[in-house]
């Protein structure tokens, strides 16, 4: 088939000479066997962390957010950092399944399912933070605009403030969670059917419910493809809008260091960057533990590393743009935030800026941590050898996760801690409660992911099958031979393209 052609110069995406039923077997295996001891160890640790985190949350709600390290000057810190960090991580899944679908990147089929799952779990973790930060969480439903009796006289209701970016956030995050879930689930249905048709007993009953009675009819697939494409088209601007709106939380204000117009696209690039780092962290382990190296190949890892170097560089350009424009603006507050509160370390830049000893930026270490992890470290991926090294990629992905956490910390805390009046200057440190809530969300995240890895098809079975003929290693032909024959045919006007190039599809003259 002509349209199934793919250049032999492309690396195979499925190795091991798999047949369709091999694919089914390999991917379903993890849902059909008992988990290994290591899994039990991992889930015990993460569930424990989750429980401790939940206790810390309960303590926060019971006592009030005074148990955190916040003060009047630094009113947002650790929790909002975590919120933005988790939302950012939650961007990779939809990016992989939606944007890469539109860009026809076939390698997405190996990782999209797990990445989407990760997205949903990350967004769940993110939602925890603004929820508990509201203080009186039992009134949190006030945020939803519905006709109510709180408006006083007559028929008027008390509405939330539609001018507030925080309200936009509520809409953005809930829409994102809903659409991601729907996208994910509609893709899962055919794969659940695959598991259902192999299962027996109670498992068959469970997967039968999950599979919604899928049969794989021609019309079902036709609508499936149409749905995927339109949802991808909708999810692409949606995923951009979510982190854009998160950036509006900061950028609509007049706080120096927050108010800058590059924030929307730069937050989006950073979110994709951190999301891919988390996908790499998880998938490098998952492919090893579940023996999926034939489906998530080194080629997949290299492709993701290319996205990392691209988005990392965009983020780097944005950092430098911010720094330059802070100087260029001529605005002393803007300049202060960047030069005195961020980059002025005690050793190099502080002395260069003429600062006396001890006058350096209190959070200089956070800024330089961010710069090193986010801008410098991904540059190693310009080298093919490093892009294809699993150990190196794994270490770097952790670095990026850390760096992106620090980015949000730098933006939030360094912009706030030195208020306009020096008497209000302060230093923020988290309390143990805040740290435990954070590790608690990590626990929730990994618990959910571990459960997912044993019960769900971790790779999109049907989608991988649909690229087997173009990207399976047994179908890769000798490049020169295949091409030579083809072009001889083109020139002689025979073969596949007989009757004019691309036949009737071309426009009439």
């Amino acid at each position, binding site marked *: 088939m002509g349209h199934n052609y793919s250049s032999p110069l492309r690396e195979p995406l499925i190795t091991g000479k798999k047949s369709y039923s091999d694919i089914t077997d390999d991917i379903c295996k993890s849902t059909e066997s008992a988990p290994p001891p290591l899994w039990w160890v991992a889930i015990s640790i993460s569930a424990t962390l989750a429980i401790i985190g939940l206790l810390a949350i309960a303590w926060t709600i019971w006592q009030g957010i005074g148990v955190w390290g916040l003060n009047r000057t630094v009113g947002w810190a650790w929790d909002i950092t975590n919120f933005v960090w988790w939302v950012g991580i939650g961007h990779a899944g939809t990016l992989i399944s939606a944007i890469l679908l539109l860009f026809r990147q076939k390698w997405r089929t190996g990782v999209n399912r797990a990445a989407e799952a990760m997205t949903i779990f990350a967004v769940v973790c993110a939602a925890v933070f603004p929820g508990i930060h509201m203080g009186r969480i039992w009134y949190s439903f006030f945020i939803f605009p519905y006709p109510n009796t709180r408006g006083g006289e007559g028929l008027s209701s008390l509405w939330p403030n539609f001018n507030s970016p925080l309200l936009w956030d509520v809409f953005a995050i809930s829409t994102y969670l809903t659409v991601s879930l729907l996208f994910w689930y509609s893709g899962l249905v055919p794969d659940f059917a695959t598991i259902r048709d192999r299962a027996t007993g109670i498992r068959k009953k469970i997967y039968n419910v999950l599979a919604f009675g899928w049969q794989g*009819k021609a019309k*079902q697939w036709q609508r499936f493809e149409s749905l995927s494409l339109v949802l991808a088209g909708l999810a692409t601007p*949606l995923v951009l809008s979510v982190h854009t709106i998160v950036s509006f939380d900061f950028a609509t204000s007049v706080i120096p260091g927050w108010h800058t117009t590059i924030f929307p696209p730069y937050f989006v690039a950073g979110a994709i960057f951190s999301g891919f780092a988390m996908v790499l962290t998880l998938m490098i382990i998952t492919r090893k533990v579940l023996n999926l190296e034939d489906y998530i190949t080194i080629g997949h890892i290299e492709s993701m590393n290319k996205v990392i170097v691209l988005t990392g560089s965009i983020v780097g350009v944005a950092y430098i743009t911010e720094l330059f424009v802070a100087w260029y603006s001529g605005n002393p507050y803007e300049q202060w935030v960047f030069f005195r509160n961020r980059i002025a370390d005690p050793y190099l830049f502080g002395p260069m800026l003429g600062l006396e000893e001890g006058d350096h930026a209190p959070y200089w270490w956070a800024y330089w941590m961010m710069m090193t992890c986010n801008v410098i470290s991904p540059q190693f991926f310009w080298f093919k050898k490093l892009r294809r090294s699993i150990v190196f990629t794994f270490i770097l992905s952790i670095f990026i996760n850390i760096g992106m956490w620090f980015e949000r910390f730098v933006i939030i805390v360094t912009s706030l801690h030195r208020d306009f009046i020096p008497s209000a200057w302060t230093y923020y440190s988290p309390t143990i409660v805040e740290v435990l809530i954070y590790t608690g969300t990590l626990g929730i995240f990994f618990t959910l992911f571990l459960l997912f890895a044993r019960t769900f098809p971790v790779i999109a079975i049907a989608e991988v099958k649909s690229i087997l003929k173009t990207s399976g290693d047994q179908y890769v032909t000798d490049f020169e031979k295949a091409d030579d024959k083809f072009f001889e045919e083109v020139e002689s006007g025979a073969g596949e393209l007989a009757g004019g190039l691309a036949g009737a599809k071309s426009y009439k003259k």
Partner: protein
Amino acid sequence: MDTVNNKTFLVGLYDDEETLLHAVKRIKTAGINISDALTPFPVHGLDEAMGVPETRLHTAGFVFGMTGFLFAILSMIAITTIDWKINYGGKPNLSLPSYIPITFELTVLFASVGMVITYFIRNGLSVFNSTEVIDERITDDRFALIFDAEEYKESTLEDIDHLLQDTGAVEIKVKEMKKYKNLNK
């Protein structure tokens, strides 16, 4: 769409999507209508070869999206200019730039949710469906062409049988189904 009870189907199973596509084309050229095709993954060009009309799901998505757009923008305008005029930060009561984020989100939300619900209903997918399947390997590595025995003459069925063999079907069988919804009608 019609629900047929206790139907008998002639089923031809293939093990490769390209063989299946050739078979569909051959059978169609022989002037025989194929009741349905079932595959483990979407086969490019199968709906066209089968003569399945194009789906209008995306049009439904557009309509849902427009509904969400109008709902969001009109309610926000009504709320802030009629129901409860509050001055926020010195901005005008009607602050259209501020409404754009929420309007966008609701447009996407309505379009997606509406489309997915439509998709499930039109495709006959629900948690209450029974497990009845034509062949359990169809979700693994078999591609099936099925023919509703009632709709063909005895002689045509024999022709189909031959055609299935000729076009490389690895297995041909007769299957009774209690319920089968044909979506192609």
